[in-house]
């Protein structure tokens, strides 16, 4: 095993790790050695072309097919220079005050979090898409929502030069999306931070990590690692885990922190989601143009959020309920399909958690609560109303049996879409807003870290990603992750003298 020594090692390079890397740039410029270890490769825009499955296999954990232990939810998260910000649609919202207040974490104030997230929104070029760049899929949602009595709002997006490829979830082939791979990581590297890709951290030891660097597989996408393949033990004064809501708790658990941190892995939430489709009589622009420009936020009132979306053939086929002739008919109507993503606002409940198997691999346990099922059913009903108000001929609703609802049945939506049809396994549920597992709080009795991401009683170990959320955020989490990671980096800068100085003195 090769031995290395740095001052700070950051594990992961997504919204959390990329932000920490940039915000520790001042330490790097002052001569401290800051190292980022990223499990995935560094991709070029050229890698974001080609077929759906090849790209999904290169970017996503298990090719996008990572399942919960119950095999009832597909969890989407990426491994890449930039983490999941590479496959994100770029929606950039600030956290709701009621959520931050309910978290009740000492030191975490809504105004402070928003002030930080606003800074990153500006840095990432967040803006509203111009009206002439909106496609029919988004316009129909906006107009249908208004007609059905909902309040559609436009998503601020972190785009620069979007060409409307509609391929955001497979990586932008035009480099328009301003994820950490485009903004924070390059800035960090300009400051002297080293980023090593294809470097999987196997475990954390006392002020050290053990990582395995892999060669690029034959025919694989992305650049080779900048380090030679092999195992490394990297000593560091400070270790920052930014592996996301599955990666961070799993890493800490397999490193033996579970005994002293009884809440480690607990409190996992994910905004369980359905993809709904509706068929129009005429072709609409759907797979051209930015896919996600509008949303309806009913989180506080009805426990759901609706968002526009547009997915790819395999993802769409998998997410429709059923099979056979009706399923095929919808698939063959792709150019006439409108899509809505419905997300339930779940809560941290006992039992929904991240664990590890004997080999140390993450295992996510998740059971649907009645409230989540109720949220998804209410969201599906609302979406059906919006689809029909937008002129759709028929709507595909997972929690209806049969799932196709014809326009003639539009006045029977509540009757047709019911919780009793929500049968896990019959219907597809997916999630990409993965949160919790290393929640912030007061002590090890109720949490894993404090409000600065400091792991309780382990001052050299920090967490800076969505796993910090004590409960679901109820909006897209990207900017809030960056804001919290910025706080963690600030804490590290404050503590660097003591922690790195002590280490330097032996």
């Amino acid at each position: 095993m090769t031995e290395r020594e740095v001052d700070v090692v950051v594990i992961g390079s997504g919204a959390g790790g990329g932000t920490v890397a940039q915000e520790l740039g001042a330490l790097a410029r002052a001569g401290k050695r800051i190292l980022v270890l990223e499990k995935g490769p560094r991709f070029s825009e050229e890698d974001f072309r080609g077929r759906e499955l090849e790209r999904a296999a290169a970017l996503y954990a298990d090719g996008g097919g990572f399942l919960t232990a119950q095999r009832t939810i597909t969890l989407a998260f990426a491994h890449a220079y930039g983490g999941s910000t590479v496959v994100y649609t770029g929606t950039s919202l600030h956290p709701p005050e009621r959520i931050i207040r309910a978290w009740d974490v000492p030191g975490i104030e809504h105004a402070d979090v928003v002030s930080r997230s606003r800074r990153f929104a500006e840095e990432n070029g967040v803006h509203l898409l111009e009206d002439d760049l909106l496609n029919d899929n988004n316009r129909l949602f906006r107009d249908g929502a208004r007609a059905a009595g909902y309040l559609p709002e436009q998503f601020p997006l972190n785009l620069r030069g979007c060409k409307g490829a509609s391929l955001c979830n497979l990586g932008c082939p035009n480099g328009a999306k301003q994820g950490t791979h485009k903004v924070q990581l390059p800035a960090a590297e300009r400051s002297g931070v080293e980023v090593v890709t294809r470097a999987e951290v196997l475990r954390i030891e006392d002020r050290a990590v053990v990582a395995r660097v892999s060669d690029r597989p034959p025919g694989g996408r992305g650049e080779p690692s900048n380090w030679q393949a092999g195992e490394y033990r990297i000593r560091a004064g400070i270790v920052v885990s930014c592996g996301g809501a599955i990666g961070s708790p799993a890493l800490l658990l397999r490193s033996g922190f579970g005994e002293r941190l009884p809440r480690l892995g607990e409190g996992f939430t994910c905004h369980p989601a359905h993809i709904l489709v509706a068929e129009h009589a005429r072709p609409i622009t759907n797979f051209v143009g930015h896919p996600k420009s509008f949303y309806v936020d009913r989180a506080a009132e009805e426990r759901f959020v609706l968002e526009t979306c547009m997915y790819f053939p395999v993802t769409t086929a998998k997410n429709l309920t059923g099979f056979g002739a009706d399923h095929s008919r919808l698939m063959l109507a792709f150019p006439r399909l409108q899509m809505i993503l419905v997300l339930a606002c779940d809560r941290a409940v006992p039992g929904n958690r991240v664990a590890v198997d004997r080999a140390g691999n993450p295992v996510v346990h998740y059971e649907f609560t009645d409230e989540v099922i109720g949220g998804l059913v209410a969201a599906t009903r609302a979406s059906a109303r919006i689809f029909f108000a937008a002129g759709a001929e028929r709507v595909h609703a997972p929690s209806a049996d049969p799932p196709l609802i014809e326009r003639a049945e539009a006045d029977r939506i509540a009757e047709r879409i019911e919780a009793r049809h929500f049968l896990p396994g019959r219907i597809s549920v997916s999630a990409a807003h993965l949160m919790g597992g290393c929640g912030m709080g007061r002590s090890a009795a109720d949490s894993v870290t404090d409000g600065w991401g400091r792991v309780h009683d382990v001052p050299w170990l920090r967490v800076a990603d969505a796993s910090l959320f004590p409960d679901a955020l109820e909006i897209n989490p990207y900017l809030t992750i960056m804001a919290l990671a910025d706080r963690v980096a600030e804490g590290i800068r404050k503590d660097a003298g003591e922690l790195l100085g002590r280490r330097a003195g032996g």
Partner: protein
Amino acid sequence: MSTDPFFLAPVRSAFRAVATTVVPEAAGLDEGGWAEMEETIQSQLAGRPEGLRRQIRLFVRLLQWLPLFLHARRFTGLDAARRTAFLERMQRAPVTILRVGFWGLRSLVFLGYYGSRHGASATGYAAHPDGWGAGR
């Protein structure tokens, strides 16, 4: 490209019978089309544990033999309407593991069919990296 034999080869006829029930257009595939579909599925599962492939194979066997108790015929011996009715029973089964197992298998069929060039293009989906500039 994987050089291993297709992991569902021992239950190929039952798998194809399920696949053509899940995606009726798959009945029109020639041997080259089936080979592409099998290769797509094989490569997607290449990095996954062997136990998963074993479970899928076992589930296909279960689907092949279970109709014997209901219809006195194996799945491959049923006509198209009975195959559909049987799989609909599976996706509404009171036992979660049956529903989840069928969901997983149908997902693999969709992956194999719509992940192929022919299946994807037949849907009319034609996203282009140049987006609005692609001249549609």
